[in-house]
């Protein structure tokens, strides 16, 4: 356990204290107690930054977790994870500060819920970026989905909130599940869950038939999380969350988890044509779709949501383009292809700053005017001067105007897109020319929605009669966080090279490892004036066309394109969900008859089918009666009595004799255990039978009289057939297993336990040692099942429906 392990766990542990703070210090806003934690994490992480211009040394610390399954809690801190961890903790601090002013400490406001979810998210997100083990990463990944859904549904009394929460949960968790399948395939190929070890083996596994399926499954996880087309539809609906949450999760951090995963796995999959085209293609499509859809929105948060979708697509496409670098084994530090990765890392950072501040500003506008509808807003420049200034900075950066940081990364983005067209691989010569074209068109729309958002809100006529509240400037506390982010936009816009070798280059090293020689570094130098080159001309084109489009905004407003607002893909989701539910209801109606005899039929037929399939498939039929154990004379009597009582059960016409017969069977089985000298089993069986008698007595009271039912002969005969085949298949399996083990040189698994029980676990009772030590995890999960069953019984009996409720 090291300090680095505590970082992702600390928010979870801290979350336990939140309800306490909330209860004890009700008059103090709970956010003040939360604030120090991300700040401490942020300051602690700052010390890892390489300030002296030296290369960054990754840190790796391991704590064994489930070592026997290859699942260890390994923290791996390199340039990429450090960048993300700093963003998560840094923006987390600002968001918590902002939320203190945004969510008022009202009497019935469940602030404890809010901060517990937020801390849960923070810990999970830090866990995602810091774990080296894929399974641990997956666990944290799903926790981010869960906490995100909880935060979106924070105001759960609103129907839209619940819809948004469910949608985000369903889409991201489905993707996450596909990702888990991809991870499993990677494990099958490499035998390890460690990302770094898998990357080291990338050359060997590239030819495997599982390689491309694994890639696609992992990308499904990344694309759903990072809201890539066509999975982006959850993000606009996630805007129902409180604005601090939108700023934190849905623009700066969580939606970048997919970006992180793609960047992290670029060394593994990069250099493959499939990876290049899928990541670049979906990224560009998302970029275009998002920016065009953003223009149609009337809600400020809706604009920002689609803008986030499109910017995520931009970063994704850059990662795709940059992965081409792996096609060449050795490159120099100033290569053509690494420019795309540089732009991706730089824009990732820039986007977090300007989009974070814009979300907070929109939150302020919403908070102070009561609406986010751009048709109602207007003329706020004079009323909210500080908000106006911060917005100006954020919007200009988003539109890609100098001298802000968004301009710089957009220029490098154009450069990367232009570079790609000169490649002579992956069939780039056929469709490659589209890359800069799409990038340029999307940038025009980005410019248009930025203008729209800004001018509709702050200029024009102030319409106080349409606003639910009397508009005024926000309190200072609320303005601090967006102002800090806005300041960063300016500072890193003017002095981008402050980031060059502290943040950007180390992250590039982690995305493109092994390409440079020992001790070499990528060349990172970002500056504004490149001369009058193609990129600058493209930007000027964007500004010209964008302004022209915006000036004709009145005409645009009349078109059908503008009037529709919902994404057309939502229909597919809604219909899919309704179809899923009605389909499930149909299957349920057919299968769940409420009759135990049907359920037994399903189970037994399935058992027979699976066992006989396995036997036939492996050709395992064999009967060899040599080496069987001596059967004692008692055994014949016990077996005879057992068979007779079993056969007699179906012929009983009253319940009591049937129950007694079943009891006799149980005790006879216990007797068999005694004869074969298994005291533990015998004891357990006896006790279970005893307790069962009591249970039978209790249930008996509720049971109706056993009626003589008349069944069709077909039903009777098929039941007989099923029961006979179960008996036959089980017997054959047992006999075959015996014959098989003696024909081959297989040592039984029990030998290991016999030899090691005392030496390794200090116990002489092997059964117990297996239960509590060797197979402790199984036992633990079994008692969890017991607990769940107990809850189920209680719920079924105590809260049963009277038959009239709508279920």
């Amino acid at each position, binding site marked *: *356990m090291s300090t680095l392990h505590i970082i992702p766990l600390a928010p979870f542990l801290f979350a336990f204290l939140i309800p306490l703070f909330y209860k004890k210090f009700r008059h103090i806003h709970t956010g003040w107690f939360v604030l120090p934690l991300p700040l401490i994490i942020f300051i602690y992480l700052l010390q890892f930054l390489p300030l002296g211009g030296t290369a960054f040394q990754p840190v790796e610390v391991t*704590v*064994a*977790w*489930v*070592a*026997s399954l290859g699942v260890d809690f390994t923290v791996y801190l390199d340039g990429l994870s450090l960048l993300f961890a700093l963003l998560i903790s840094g923006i987390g601090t600002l968001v918590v500060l902002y939320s203190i002013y945004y969510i008022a400490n009202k009497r019935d406001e469940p602030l404890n819920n809010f901060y517990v979810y937020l801390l849960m998210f923070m810990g999970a997100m830090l866990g995602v970026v810091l774990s080296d083990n894929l399974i641990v990463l997956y666990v944290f990944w799903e926790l981010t989905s869960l906490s995100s859904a909880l935060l979106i549904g924070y105001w759960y009394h609103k129907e839209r909130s619940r819809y948004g929460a469910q949608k985000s949960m369903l889409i991201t968790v489905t993707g996450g599940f596909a990702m888990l399948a991809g991870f499993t395939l990677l494990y099958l190929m490499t035998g390890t869950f460690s990302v770094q070890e898998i990357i080291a083996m990338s050359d060997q596994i590239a030819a495997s038939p599982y390689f491309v399926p694994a890639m696609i499954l992992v990308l499904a996880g990344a694309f759903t999380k990072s809201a890539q087309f066509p999975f982006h539809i959850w993000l606009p609906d996630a805007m129902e969350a409180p604005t601090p949450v939108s700023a934190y999760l849905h623009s700066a951090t969580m939606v970048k988890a997919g970006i992180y995963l793609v960047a992290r796995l670029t060394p593994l999959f990069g250099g493959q044509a499939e990876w290049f085209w899928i990541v670049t293609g979906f990224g560009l499509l998302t970029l275009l779709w998002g920016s065009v859809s953003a223009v149609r929105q009337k809600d400020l948060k809706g604009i920002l949501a689609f803008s986030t979708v499109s910017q995520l697509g931009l970063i994704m496409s850059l990662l795709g383009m940059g992965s081409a670098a792996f096609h060449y084994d050795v490159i120099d530090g100033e290569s053509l292809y690494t420019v795309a990765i540089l732009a991706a890392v730089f824009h990732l950072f820039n986007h977090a700053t300007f989009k974070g501040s814009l979300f907070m500003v929109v939150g302020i506008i919403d908070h102070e005017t009561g609406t986010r509808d751009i048709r109602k807003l207007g003329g706020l420049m004079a009323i909210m001067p500080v908000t106006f200034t911060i917005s100006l900075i954020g919007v200009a950066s988003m539109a890609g105007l100098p001298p802000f940081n968004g301009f710089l990364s957009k220029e490098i983005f154009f450069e990367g897109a232009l570079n790609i067209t000169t490649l002579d691989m992956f069939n780039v010569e056929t469709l490659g020319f589209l890359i800069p074209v799409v990038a340029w068109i999307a940038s025009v729309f980005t410019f248009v929605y930025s203008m729209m958002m800004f001018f509709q809100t702050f200029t024009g006529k102030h319409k106080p009669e349409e606003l639910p509240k009397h508009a005024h400037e926000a309190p200072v506390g609320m303005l601090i966080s967006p102002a800090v982010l806005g300041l960063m936009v300016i500072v890193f816009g003017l002095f981008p090279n402050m980031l060059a070798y502290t943040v950007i280059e180390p992250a590039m090293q982690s995305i493109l490892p092994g390409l440079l020689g020992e001790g070499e570094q990528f060349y990172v130098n970002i500056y504004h004036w490149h001369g009058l080159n193609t990129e600058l001309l493209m930007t000027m084109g964007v500004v010209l066309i964008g302004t022209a489009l915006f000036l004709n905004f009145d005409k645009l407003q009349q078109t059908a394109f503008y009037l529709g607002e919902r994404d057309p893909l939502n229909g597919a989701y809604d219909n899919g969900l309704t179809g899923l539910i009605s389909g499930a209801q149909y299957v349920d109606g057919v299968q769940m008859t409420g009759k135990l005899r049907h359920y037994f039929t399903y189970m037994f037929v399935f058992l027979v089918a699976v066992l006989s399939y396995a036997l036939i498939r492996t050709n395992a039929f064999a009967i060899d009666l040599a080496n069987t154990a001596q059967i004692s004379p008692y055994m014949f009597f016990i077996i005879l009595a057992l068979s007779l009582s079993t056969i007699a059960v179906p012929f009983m016409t009253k319940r009591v004799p049937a129950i007694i017969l079943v009891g006799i069977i149980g005790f006879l089985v216990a007797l068999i255990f005694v004869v074969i000298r298994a*005291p*533990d089993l015998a*004891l*357990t069986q006896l*006790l*279970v039978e*005893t*307790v069962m008698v*009591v*249970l039978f007595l*209790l*249930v008996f009271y*509720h049971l109706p009289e056993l009626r003589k039912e008349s069944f069709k002969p077909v039903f009777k005969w098929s039941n007989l057939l099923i029961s006979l085949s179960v008996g036959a298949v089980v017997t054959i399996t047992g006999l075959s297993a015996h014959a098989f083990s003696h024909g081959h040189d297989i040592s039984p698994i029990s030998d290991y336990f016999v030899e090691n029980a005392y030496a390794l*676990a*200090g*116990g*002489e*009772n092997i*059964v*117990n*040692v297996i*239960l*509590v*030590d060797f197979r*402790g*995890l199984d*036992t*633990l999960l079994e*008692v*969890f099942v*017991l*607990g769940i*069953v*107990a*809850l189920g*019984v*209680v719920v079924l*009996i*105590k809260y*049963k429906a009277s038959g009239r409720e709508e279920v």
Partner: protein
Amino acid sequence: MKNTPIQLHVVTRIVAFIILIFSIFLFFAGHNNPGGGFIGGLMTASALVLLYLSFDLKTIKRVLPFDYAYVIGAGLLLATLTGVAGMFFGFPYLTQFFEYFQLPILGETELTTALPFDLGIYLVVVGFTLLVILTVAEDDS
């Protein structure tokens, strides 16, 4: 007034406690002899069920005011946390340890971390059995 089965009461008072003591013996014997948390738990549960059967629900509820759902919860928590303890010393989850100690009265005794884990299982089994039986018993609809 219904008849009070005095014989049953008297016998139960004695037998139930013999079973209880034996169940605790079984629980501790588990590491080296037949027994353990599961069997011990079942036997404790049957002793308690015997009490419930011969007396009535209300009387025993007054004597043993447990909510068995909490017993299950406590057991699960105990079993889960025993596994965590080893992690602080860098061992994988659920690593069990044992050592021999010289204790007063008991002499040389083996103490294992498997014991609290087993206690967790014991509690879950007791809680489960009684919760289910009592829930069914109390359902009079």
